[in-house]
């Protein structure tokens, strides 16, 4: 499985993401934001966490307009897989690949801790390594993770089983405790918590491994 990790000025989880993907068996290339196209044969694009462009204007807003993001949108439109974590999730909402928006945390604090998440659906390449209802521990580290979406879209997300993860103890005020959502074709996942920071015993937990293994497993059997 071939994966690309996008690097923006201000990305800071790009190498962690590459390490997690490689550990799960992916062939990983780093791709600079000014590139207008993805390397050939890419199966998965990972948009990492960080503070792209200093979070100027809005988190992810400038990154979403960078040349590579047009290619990422094209990749998703062709049915390619995309994983956006933290700032990557913010970028994906800004590109319109995922609904909703991430606002300032309700308590205005930067939150950095491991959170318990509930796996809401196992029906996606990202979550098939879990059972719906499982509790997993992933770290969060964000100031703007307060997921907001209008009632009609929330009903749609629920009706289509597109809420991937919810917080056990909502740290940021997100609507319906939402921590991660899937696209309509279930191949784009955006989430605020960091699965790539939970793949090694040294991280204090390995609950994230199943996400990467599940994703890469798609291509082993294909």
């Amino acid at each position, binding site marked *: 499985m071939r994966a690309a990790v996008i690097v923006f000025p201000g990305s800071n989880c790009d190498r962690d993401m590459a390490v997690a993907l490689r550990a799960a068996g992916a062939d990983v290339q780093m791709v600079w934001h000014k590139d207008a196209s993805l390397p050939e044969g890419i199966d998965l694009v990972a948009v990492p966490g960080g503070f792209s462009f200093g979070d100027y*204007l*809005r988190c992810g*807003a400038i990154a979403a*307009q960078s040349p590579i993001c047009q290619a990422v949108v094209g990749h998703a439109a062709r049915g390619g897989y995309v994983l956006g974590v933290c700032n990557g999730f913010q970028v994906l*909402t*800004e590109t319109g690949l995922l*609904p*909703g*928006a991430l*606002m*300032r*945390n*309700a*308590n*205005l604090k930067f939150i950095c801790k491991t959170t318990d998440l509930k796996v809401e659906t196992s029906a996606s390449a990202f979550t098939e390594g879990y059972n719906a209802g499982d509790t997993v521990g992933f770290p969060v580290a964000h100031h703007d993770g*307060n997921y*907001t*979406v*209008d009632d009609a879209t929330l009903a749609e997300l629920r009706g289509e089983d597109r809420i991937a993860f919810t917080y056990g103890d909502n740290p940021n*005020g997100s609507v319906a405790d939402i921590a991660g959502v899937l696209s309509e074709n279930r191949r784009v996942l955006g989430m605020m918590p960091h699965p790539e920071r939970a793949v090694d015993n040294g991280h204090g937990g390995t609950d994230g491994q199943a996400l990467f293994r599940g994703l890469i497993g798609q291509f082993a059997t294909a």
Partner: protein
Amino acid sequence: MKARVYVMLKNGVLDPQGEAVRHALGSLGFDGVEGVRQGKVIELDLADGTSEALIEQMCEKLLANTVIESYRIEVL
């Protein structure tokens, strides 16, 4: 020419920063502040003759996130 774009959170979208400012005003002894909404002002220096329609495109594409924000353009 110049234009000013006002970007505000839409009505109904909770504004935690505005709320914090409201609390702070209250604790400074300013009574009767019933609500505070915080937004952004963006000033644009534009080539003469730039149409308002073009500024609107700038707002839709980048300056505002219309999922949560509304905007108002003022040509100066």
